[in-house]
């Protein structure tokens, strides 16, 4: 991978993709939980999810849970591939330099 995906490159969108990728295929994440995981404001998160949805990277489902409106987001197949490519791109940068990675 020579150039990063411009859509995923944005930090909040990268975190959204990472949060969704951690789930089993097809699993949805509620908007409020996603907001807590990526630590974003509601408006900011909504805008970034819109960008990812337009790119076909995520699927958004809106319904009502009782009387409360609910928005749920899941990773699309195209998004899973784009995310994998982006992570490969990041690793390729490190592989060239030999910088170790340790997840906390």
């Amino acid at each position, binding site marked *: 991978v020579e*150039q*990063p995906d*411009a859509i995923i*490159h944005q*930090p909040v969108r*990268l*975190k959204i*993709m*990472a*949060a*969704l*990728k*951690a*789930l*089993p*295929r*097809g*699993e*949805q*994440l509620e908007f409020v*939980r996603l907001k807590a*995981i*990526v630590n974003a404001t509601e408006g900011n998160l909504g805008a970034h999810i819109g960008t990812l949805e337009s790119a076909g990277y995520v*699927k958004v489902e809106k319904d009502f849970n009782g009387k409360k409106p609910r928005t749920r987001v*899941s990773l699309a197949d195209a998004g899973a591939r784009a995310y994998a490519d982006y*992570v490969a791109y*990041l*690793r390729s*940068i*490190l592989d*060239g*330099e030999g*910088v170790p*990675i*340790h*997840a*906390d």
Partner: protein
Amino acid sequence: MSLSPNEAADALRDIAAVETRSHRLYGYRQGSPHLILWGVLWAIGYGLNEPWPQQGRAIWSALVAIGLVGGFLIVLRSHAQRANRTGAKPRIYWRFPAIALTGLAFVFASIAVMGPAGGRQIGAFIPLVVAAGYAVMGFWLGLRFTIAGAVLAALTLVGFFLLPAHFSPWMAVVGGGTLMLSGFWLRTA
């Protein structure tokens, strides 16, 4: 739009942290209904065990069967919803029944080897095994499982040693209540 190695390393650390958190919250969400279900069944079981101790075996056999079928349906529903969204083919969900059967076999074998045991001893042993299971699960799935297991074990031991005359009502209220509250606590994560 290229990144330096340090920026790439930071980005990978960030996404690893987010993936860990997302996975943990998913585990909490999946575990929550099981804890609530078993909390209700424990409350009923220990509650009925007090006035009808002679019927204990029949009561618990029925409740364990309900719990296993209920747990299996919870897992099945979750898998079916995912399969609907992805268009995946139906699979054989063998893990949940396999785990349940392994647990039951372990408990019955332990009681047979360690026996003869009284109703109060069996009534404490099984919650301690369950508590240990949750505590160990927590090492992979998140601290809240471990805390729930530790609290359940501690309260079971308190009831067993300090309140032997009121053990069944203690476990109905405190044991069942701990499981239910833990289930709701997982949902709030």
